[in-house]
């Protein structure tokens, strides 16, 4: 698999897939998609990158430890749930705001924050599993 073409294309492919994964994540509320699917697409992107350039490259590219990303995702998801406490409504109640940026109304919600948390958990946990398995006895 370590062909020149693959190694050349892989970073671009990865970037493209990562971008696509975020797109899938964000549109998930109204079209097919969401945190789980988006996260899995991102993991695939990283897997391709890893196969092409080695796992140390993936670790460098991620900057954070994948488990830390996963934990941060769980933290965000909890935060999204707990935000409702500030408004005196039950845990996990969806909260929506519609700020207008540059003349475009952008719907933001605690639900979306929660979905981002799901995304990060999936990306972090599964990437860390894949990396650990790929690393195998190397280290």
């Amino acid at each position, binding site marked *: 698999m370590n062909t020149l073409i693959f190694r050349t294309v892989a970073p671009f492919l990865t970037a493209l897939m990562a971008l696509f994964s975020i797109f899938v994540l964000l549109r998930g509320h*109204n*079209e*097919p998609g969401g945190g*789980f699917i988006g996260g899995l697409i991102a993991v695939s992107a990283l897997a391709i990158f890893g196969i092409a350039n080695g796992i140390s490259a993936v670790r460098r590219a991620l900057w954070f430890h994948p488990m830390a990303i996963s934990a941060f995702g769980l933290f965000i998801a909890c935060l999204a749930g707990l935000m409702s406490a500030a408004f005196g409504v039950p845990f996990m109640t969806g909260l929506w705001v519609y700020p207008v940026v540059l003349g475009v109304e952008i719907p933001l919600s605690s639900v979306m924050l929660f979905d981002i948390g799901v995304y990060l958990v*999936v990306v972090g*946990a*599964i990437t860390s*599993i894949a990396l*650990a*398995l790929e690393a195998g006895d190397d280290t």
Partner: protein
Amino acid sequence: MEFPFVLLIGLFFAAAVYLMLSKFLVRVLLGVVLLGNGVNLLLFTNGRILRDVPPIIPDGHDVPATLTANPLPQALILTAIVISFSFFAFLLVLVYRAYQDLGTDNGNEMRLAEPEDDPLPPTGY
């Protein structure tokens, strides 16, 4: 429409059980994967099969315009897929590490926790 699904699911379960009855852990692992898929299909079929219309509400409507597929089993299955993958990965690593330490994937040869000639517990006071 459910009947072909029923047959397929029966096959999934039978194959999964057959694989899990093997003493080789890799086969058991494959059985677990098949079982996960079988259960997901079972849930899906339990919610009744409806062809081709995803449960997405079109623009300009507040409720689905036509009869759509049942969204509830889909939501259940979506998370189930991810969880069963995690479970599968965990089992895989267990098998892998067991192989590294014990040199076999035959469950019957792994007797570290339950030795074959376990002595009788002490009968004194």
